[in-house]
């Protein structure tokens, strides 16, 4: 099991019952390591209550363009995106940049 903190910022919390911070436990599948890709699958499967909201978060099987994904405050592009292996205490944040300013 891996314990991580997931944050939905920049208005994204609206599809997660208006809660910005979530503690998430992702179960290991046997000996397999838990990656960010698996965390995203977990979020889509278990945390998005309204199926219509899925498209706000996911597009073509990845995070929708316009949503900024940070792993421990580092752009996930620099961490191998979905292949990053999660450790206990990691913070993964998703920030929407799409609303007006």
């Amino acid at each position, binding site marked *: 099991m891996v314990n991580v*903190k997931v*944050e939905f*910022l*920049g*208005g994204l919390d*609206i599809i997660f019952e208006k809660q*910005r*911070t979530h503690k998430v436990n992702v179960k290991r599948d046997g000996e397999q390591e838990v990656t960010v890709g698996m965390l995203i699958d977990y979020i889509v499967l278990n945390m998005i209550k309204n199926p219509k909201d899925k498209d706000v978060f996911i597009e073509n099987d990845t995070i929708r*363009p*316009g949503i*900024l994904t*940070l792993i*421990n*405050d*580092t*752009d996930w*592009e*620099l961490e191998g995106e979905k292949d990053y292996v999660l450790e206990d*205490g*990691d*913070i993964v*944040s998703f*920030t*929407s*940049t*799409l*609303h*007006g*300013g």
Partner: protein
Amino acid sequence: MSYTAPSDPKKPKNVKISQLCELCHSRKALIKRPKNLQKICKLCFFHVFETEIHNTIVSNELFQQGEKVAVGASGGKDSTVLAYLLKLLNERHRYGIKIVLLSIDEGIVGYRDDSLATVKRNKEQYDLPLEIVSYRELYNWTMDEIVACAGVRNSCTYCGVFRRQALDRGAAKLGIKHVVTGHNADDMAETVLMNILRGDVARLEKSTAIMTQSSGSPIKRSKPFKYAYQKEIVLYAHYKKLDYFSTECTYAPEAFRGTARELMKNLEAVRPSCIIDIIYSGENLRLRPKRAKRAPPQSHIEVRSDGSVSLPSQGFVDGNRCERCGYLSSNSICKACMLLEGLQKNRAQMSIDKDISVHGAAKLTRTLENLSF
């Protein structure tokens, strides 16, 4: 509603050499700049981002010593970062400007009231004066009432026209001649793209200007974030833990702009530099000067088929004023007054429908009101 800062991550573990910042080579790179794909650390990012905005301001001579400047503040990410940065740069580089926050209250319950609360907090956080101008006091209509009357589909048309004027009027009230807005590179590229897609060539040339001023108008507008990526603005706000409001407007966003935005975001995912590239293209598009129409001689009077005659026209004069409100307008009545008139007619109808005193003094008053000489 109050502000909750994003959480701080735990201390980073051992950093590989390949992960180091490309500028200082001493800290872990946290971001990859969309402009040039450079990998840099948080502190270098602050430095580079602030310096770029400073360079934009200096090279375009946006400010003058002693100038009073109003920041169009919505409480959203762009204007919050703009207010914060202008204050910082003004102190660091001694622009000698006075900064005031200027907010427009459109009267949208559940959206603007919350974002205004953010601006009020910003006022305290950055120690800047704040002025709020409302549609209610300017036009005697709130956006909620307008939508109830004209429907949600046209909401952005009304809101856009009214806000543009409201910002000018708010600035004029404060005796300020310069309004800065938080429009960023993404917004500008989006606008260029929209104008191309709509074939709106007339707007295309103007849409990339960093500073605009209609002739005859005392108020100029500028966009210091013209070259700043939305992604970097959001990252800056995130790392600096700036308090900003982020909820989409209650009313449907302008459909066409939404589609253009989607397209831009998809393009950016493939090729991040395309945002700057579109702006660059927009800046360098030059329209072939229009061939002057051969105007009929001044004395020329056309007799139309219905027997009416045309009077010699005044033609389009830049700097015209609206007959009703005195605001700058290319027609005799400005767009806002025209929209208001349409709304007013609807409201009058609604009130007459409910009115039971169809005859008598009330009717006489109304008839008298409608008389014109």
